[in-house]
């Protein structure tokens, strides 16, 4: 049995001003992976490559152990997708749009779809263009969940949504993943959402992989470090990324808190970081490098 729902290997895609460079990571069944990085890091590019909406320049992508281009139709039967923007025909009602999409999926269930409409308070007769951004996302999610998909891919689904909507979506994903044969890839720059539900975090910056690990090990190994300026010698600097200095002191992130603790004693404050801290300091570090 194939254990990986998604495996990305040495993925390459070049544009004039941006290159996705040898990206590799994998996602096992039963887990939610958060896919983070600043705007323009290559998150959407990666997702479009997985969905074969754009052509890759190199590398491999396999979904359910199958090549994403050779077995595209078979794979897409089992993928549910939610994108940042709404690309439905906006003159149609929810029911009409469903009527267009449903026949493409062998596993489509009207019963499931109607249940989600009810759960999400979506009025079936309402036109797509009359829906709010949150409702459109919920509609996409209802479609994604109504054809017995094993893999949900979401590109910035929570951007522009209020915290109540976001938390509802997170609950739905958490219950989706109860079935351990399934998996979710979830790109976002709202990292607090991921702290709640993600099992793995894949972080890319400037088209390059920074890390792809379990959330727990990341939060264990990384630390936010603060201290007086006088402590900031070359040895300390080498162990830190994204150092921010002011007249009084510095703040930075280390990726190996055990090593840091053992090497540097003194008045250094070591705190538990958030994913956002890790992302911000790493991005800043790469800009200064």
């Amino acid at each position, binding site marked *: 049995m194939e254990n990986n729902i998604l495996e990305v290997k040495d993925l390459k895609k070049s544009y004039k001003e941006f290159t996705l460079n040898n990206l590799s990571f994998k996602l096992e069944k039963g887990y939610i992976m958060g896919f983070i990085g600043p705007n323009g890091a290559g998150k959407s590019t990666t997702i479009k490559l997985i969905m074969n909406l754009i052509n890759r320049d190199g590398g491999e992508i396999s979904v359910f152990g199958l090549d994403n281009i050779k077995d595209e139709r078979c794979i897409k039967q089992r993928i549910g997708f939610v994108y940042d923007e709404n690309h439905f025909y906006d003159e149609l009602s929810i029911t009409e749009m469903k009527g*267009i999409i449903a026949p*493409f999926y062998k596993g489509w269930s009207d019963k499931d779809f109607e249940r989600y409409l009810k759960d999400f308070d979506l009025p079936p007769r309402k036109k797509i263009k009359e829906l709010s951004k949150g409702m459109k996302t919920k509609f996409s999610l209802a479609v994604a969940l109504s054809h017995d998909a094993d893999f949900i891919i979401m590109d910035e689904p929570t951007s522009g949504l209020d915290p109540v909507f976001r938390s509802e979506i997170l609950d739905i994903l958490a219950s989706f993943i109860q079935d351990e044969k399934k998996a979710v890839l979830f790109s976002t720059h709202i990292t607090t959402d991921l702290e709640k539900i993600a099992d793995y975090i894949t972080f890319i910056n400037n088209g390059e992989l920074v890390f792809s690990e379990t959330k727990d090990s990341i939060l264990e190994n990384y630390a936010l470090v603060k201290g007086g300026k006088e402590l900031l010698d070359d040895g300390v600097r080498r162990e830190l990324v994204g150092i921010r200095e002011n007249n009084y002191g510095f703040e930075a992130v280390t990726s190996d808190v055990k090593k840091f603790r053992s090497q540097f004693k003194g008045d250094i404050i070591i705190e538990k970081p958030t994913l956002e801290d890790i992302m911000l300091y790493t991005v800043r570090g790469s800009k200064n490098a």
Partner: protein
Amino acid sequence: MLNLILKDLLVQKKSFIFTVFYSTFVFFAFSTPVFEQTIYAMGTIAIAYILILTATALDDKNRSEIILNSLPVKRDSIIMAKYLSIFVYIVVGIATMMVVGLALKLLGMPINYRLVNGAELVAILMSIGILCSIYFPIYYKFGSANVRIFNIFLFLALFFGPVNIANYMKKNGNNEFITSVLETIRNIPEWMIMSGVVAIVLAIILVSMLITIRIYRKKEF
């Protein structure tokens, strides 16, 4: 494939109100002896072409090809459905003209009502087939904003082109070359000319479809 064709009809259900108005207009404007033999062609060509353009314009406006290409459907099928829909829209156009014509006749309006004739059918297939064979590859290569202007010229050329060519021929009726061409054509039985035209148009549509499929396979969304 059928899903994709039905989708194009459903997304523009409002356009069908337009087709009813337009065909009514055609019957009132062109129910004169001059257009006696061509009124169905005139109505159907415009209706079918406008519906085909509206379908692609709606895909483009909503960027719905991102959704379509995320569904379990082959890119080739999306294009094949577009080309097959040419025939569907021709049927829709003819049906609209016939039904509206019949309704007007029953209401006692002074219009010419008859069945669509064979020459009209060939003319419709030829015009729509050629228009789409040029339009689709350009639309899928460059996007709808860029084809808009091109489209207007294309439509005008096909709308007024034949009339102007006919006038030119009439004026230069004594020209030896034209006379000999016309003479040759006159000697070929009509059914042969018609089937020849149909065969050529179908071949053009097929070639255009293969080109568009190649373009669409490489397209990025």
